């Protein structure tokens, strides 16, 4: 092993590691608490002192996905014995399931709008980034600045006219409206990130392809796109996470049909007061995929965050 004066000593490393891991554990506690609360019974969830060891139950998840009413004896007799495990859980609390809740729909809306806007944003963004990277577009610098400046506006400030515009066009509370909106919000950063990735691809590849008789379009999708795949993928993750988490536009512009999960989850209430296990269950289903994503794609993600910020 070569000796380096800049390599920290072993003791320093231990000390640094100890502090960082300590911080990481503290920062994890709220997230672990969300996941744990999802598996608690309502009584356990509001117990004092807070319970760490408890008997896990799926009651929160059942309450999340169903609407229930308080059962009278008559209703229980009419309904007969419970046939499924989730009916059993509801019965144990003296309620009967009256139907599915809206959570499933809201979650599906999040998926549709998230993936739809990401796909559209990647198509438009890659094309624009390619043009900015390879061609002499008049006013190029102004356009890039214009793209960046659109990120400075508070969402509420532009929500008023967008609300009016969407109402006139019949886009209020539709999937298409939300997809277009999220695409526009994400485009500025995407073009900026993607241009960086495409700039790194040597222009000689395309020139060779053009000489071989490819048209510009062919050169674009047969040579440039495969080379930029990693960059496109990591930019797509950012767009997806933004659309997935977005709240301000969603709460103002959607109410029923196209409402996504973030405005819906806080409105979950139980039969008697706030049903925290159900809220936590909804949050868990919504948040855990992002955490898994973050771990799996950490290299691209972390690079993207700093790259996007530092290049500006």
């Amino acid at each position, binding site marked *: 092993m070569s000796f380096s004066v800049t390599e920290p000593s072993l003791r320093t490393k231990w000390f640094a*590691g100890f502090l960082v891991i300590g911080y990481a554990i503290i920062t994890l506690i709220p997230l672990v608490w969300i996941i744990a609360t999802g598996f608690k019974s309502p009584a356990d969830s509001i117990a004092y002192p807070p319970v760490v060891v408890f008997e896990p139950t799926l009651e929160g998840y059942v309450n999340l996905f169903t609407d229930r009413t308080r059962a009278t004896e008559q209703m229980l007799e009419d309904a007969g014995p419970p046939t499924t495990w989730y009916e059993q859980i509801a019965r144990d609390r003296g309620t009967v399931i009256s139907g599915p809740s809206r959570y499933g729909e809201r979650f599906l809306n999040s998926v549709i709008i998230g993936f739809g806007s990401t796909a559209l944003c990647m198509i438009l963004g890659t094309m624009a980034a390619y043009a900015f990277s390879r061609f002499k577009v008049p006013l190029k610098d102004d356009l890039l600045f214009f793209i960046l400046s*659109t990120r400075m506006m508070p969402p509420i400030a532009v929500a008023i006219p967008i609300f009016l515009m969407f109402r006139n066009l019949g886009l209020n509370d539709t999937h298409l409206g939300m997809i*277009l909106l999220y695409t526009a919000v994400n485009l500025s950063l995407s073009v900026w990130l993607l241009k960086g990735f495409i700039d790194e691809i040597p222009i000689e590849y395309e020139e060779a392809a053009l000489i071989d008789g490819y048209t510009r379009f062919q050169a674009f999708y047969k040579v440039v796109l495969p080379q930029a795949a990693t960059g496109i993928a990591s930019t797509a993750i950012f767009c997806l*996470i933004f659309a997935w988490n977005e709240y301000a536009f969603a709460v103002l512009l959607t109410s029923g049909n196209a409402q996504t999960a973030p405005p819906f989850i806080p409105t979950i209430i139980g039969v008697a007061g706030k049903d925290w296990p159900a809220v936590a269950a909804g949050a868990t289903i919504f948040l855990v995929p992002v955490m898994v994503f973050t771990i799996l794609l950490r290299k691209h993600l972390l690079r993207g965050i*700093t790259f996007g910020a530092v290049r500006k």
Partner: protein
Amino acid sequence: MTNPAIEGAAKKTPDGLARRIRGLSDRTIAWIFVAPTIFLLLAVNIFPLIWTIRLSFTDFRVNRPNNEVEWVGLRNYQRILSDPDIWATMQATAHFLIWTIILQVLIGFTLAFLINKKFKGNDLWTTIIVFPMMLSPAVVGNFWTFLYQPQIGLFNYAIAFFTGADPASFSMIGDVNLAPWAIVIADTWMWTPFVMLICLAGLRSIPDSIYEAAECDRASKWRQFWTITIPMALPFLMLAVLFRGIENFKMFDLVVQLTGGGPGNTTTLTSIDLKREAFERWRTGYSSAYAVILFVTVFGLASIYVKALNKVKER
């Protein structure tokens, strides 16, 4: 092997037609590629901004579309700038901005500095620390109200455990004095990782050779830190402050779910106030003027800041 007949035909083909066969000209392709993006940004970003500016000079109300819209000139602006409630809102925003930035820079930079010591497994722990900033602020903010519950909340329990106070005796989001700190704590938990990542990029951009040279000159570690690490990481640190500043000036989702602006108006940040004016009181013209003032403020402050940043970079 070329066929002379085909070559002749190719030469005779007029320029325009040949191009159509070969593909579109670069210029056309450039426009085809850029146009949809520009169009969408114009439609969803610039057009609304212009519309907001126009509305800000009227007394239009969305919930009364049949009322005749009157031009009121600068009256909306006058009313906003002379309204004491708005100044209270600005103060709440300033408190939130200043403290979140101070805490996030201190903690974020320290973490980045420690992670840069390259202990074993540092990238895994970095990823775990980054979790909060990847999650939905509204959903997480909603859950923080649970952590802040007076008797049953985990946060109150932890504070009580370490200080010996009664966990039911204080309410982070119900108390006028504590609520501004409740949102600072939640935001710091959520966004410190961002500052950390930017600082980490800054620290990693410092070449080892500089430290080696300093070591040869027998500069102490302390001195190396203040004369190499800090100045060289400063542009990155300032960049992180810029982004957090802009983002927290726009802050809406996390805080609206946490406190809803209460108790009273103690945590009513500008975005929350604006939302109330625009979508609860439906004073569209008035709130448009409000939006314009906010936008000009952010843009102005950011421009001044970027100038300062560029000076630091040049040094």
